[in-house]
């Protein structure tokens, strides 16, 4: 497991009850680097969500790594997005395809947020990242 993700999830894992878990997620979201407005184009908007969710996804050929940035106008989705970015940002395509976000979210007790029926866009994001990783392998 890559370390940024582990560092990031410790507070969630240690959280006492669902309220504290949500608080940690929202704190994570707060710490997410600001997404430059120029990246908030229509193409980066994840469709069909109640909240606005942007995911910018690019590939750095020189470093052979995924470049991710994202934002959301809601605190909870932004926190979940931060988790996803911590999971995948900077990985090589090979590394990314090894990572199963479902298992990680399951472990954190957040699996229901990955359900397509949530309509929060998290599942769509994971799918988009995986598709890119597959293409670039």
């Amino acid at each position, binding site marked *: 497991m890559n370390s940024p993700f582990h560092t990031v999830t410790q507070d969630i894992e240690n959280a006492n009850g*669902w*309220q504290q878990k949500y608080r940690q997620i929202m704190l994570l979201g707060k710490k997410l680097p600001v997404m430059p407005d120029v990246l908030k184009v229509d193409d980066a908007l994840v469709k069909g969500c109640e909240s*606005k969710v942007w995911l910018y996804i690019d590939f750095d050929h020189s470093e052979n790594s995924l470049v991710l940035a994202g934002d959301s106008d809601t*605190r*909870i989705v932004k926190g979940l997005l931060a988790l996803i970015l911590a999971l995948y940002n900077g990985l090589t395509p090979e590394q990314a395809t090894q990572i199963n976000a479902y298992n990680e979210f399951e472990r954190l007790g957040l699996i229901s947020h990955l359900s397509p029926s949530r309509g929060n866009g998290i599942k769509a994001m994971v799918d988009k990242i995986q598709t890119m990783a597959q293409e670039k392998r």
Partner: protein
Amino acid sequence: MFDFETIRADFPLLTQTVNEYPLVYLDSAATSQKPLSVIKALESYYSAENANVHRGRHFLSEHATRRYEDTRTAIAEYFNVQRTEIVWTKGATESLNLIANGLTSHLKSGDKIAISAIEHHANIVPWQELAKKVNAELIILPITADLVLDSNECAAFIREHKPSVVAVTHASNTLGNITDLEPIITACKEVNATSVIDGAQAAMHLRPDLNKLDCDFYVFSAHKMLGPTGLGGLYGRYSRLNTLDVYQTGGEMIETVSLTHSTFRDAPGKFEAGTPHIAGVIAFAEAIAYLTALDFNGMRQHEHTIFNYAIKQLSTIAGITIYSHKENNIGNISFNYRDEHPFDLATLLDGYGIAVRSGHHCTQPIMSKLGIPGTVRASFALYNSLDDVDAFIKALKHCIELLD
């Protein structure tokens, strides 16, 4: 007398716990819960009565046909209209599409269609499509600052612009605000505009007398009236209804079919193509019977008490903005907390077993007008209690603490 305890006990779903909290269901504007009698009617239909309706020679088929048609009579009585003026559809959305489509050949280029800015998408988009098709102009009725249709202004507007069609809601799903329809319908008659009323929200809470209201069309959804999903209908003044263009075509709605030419039945038959939602219609009779057996004034009194209490409690919380009209309301409260996203609040409330809805509630024009992405909406019905309000307010305060 409105005996709340008995009524509450009739709704089995409300007894469950969610996330270890007792469920508090405040989403009746999206869909109502169902009394046991409706659930039992479905079970009994499928276990002992299931058959296709109309033209069947056998016992089961005739029995199903009779019960199917009896429900038409029951809903006609509920609305105080004739049974031949009721058409079954799959919901209010389909009803509005059927009407809008049916008016196609009645409109010509340059005609005007009036809607309001507080309509549900189902009462906006079909009219946009119709306007595009016949090259009509969509015009927007005036609303007041507190998002109620301004009836006298609307009436004046209608007299001035002489639209061919006026389509307005009886009550807003997002806000709960009730429209004072009389002046609007009177003006419609003066200028010979077809009046179409979206009763999806009001049909249960206000039990309208359509004969008295005297509109041309009124649409409703069974699932918002204690009935099953997949069913709705419309009332249409017979002379107007029967002259609408046909909508869906196929079995049942025809009189004769040859390979080159077909003729159609009279209304309501001509609008009911294909095998209908037989089980849904038959079970809906139980929902109508349930509503009819209730003391209507007692129910409204109860709903008012709950609503007023919720408004009062919400108003004590600093930072809460209420968008709904605080008096003239069927029982839907839209609000936000400071500039928090409604999604976050609703997600946290769900943690406490409080089922509210967040988002634009299929009314994006209201959100544009208010300049917000959406609202949290708590909507109440006859089976909600003051305890539900207390649990909701208590949870809301906890959620706010989490957000602050």
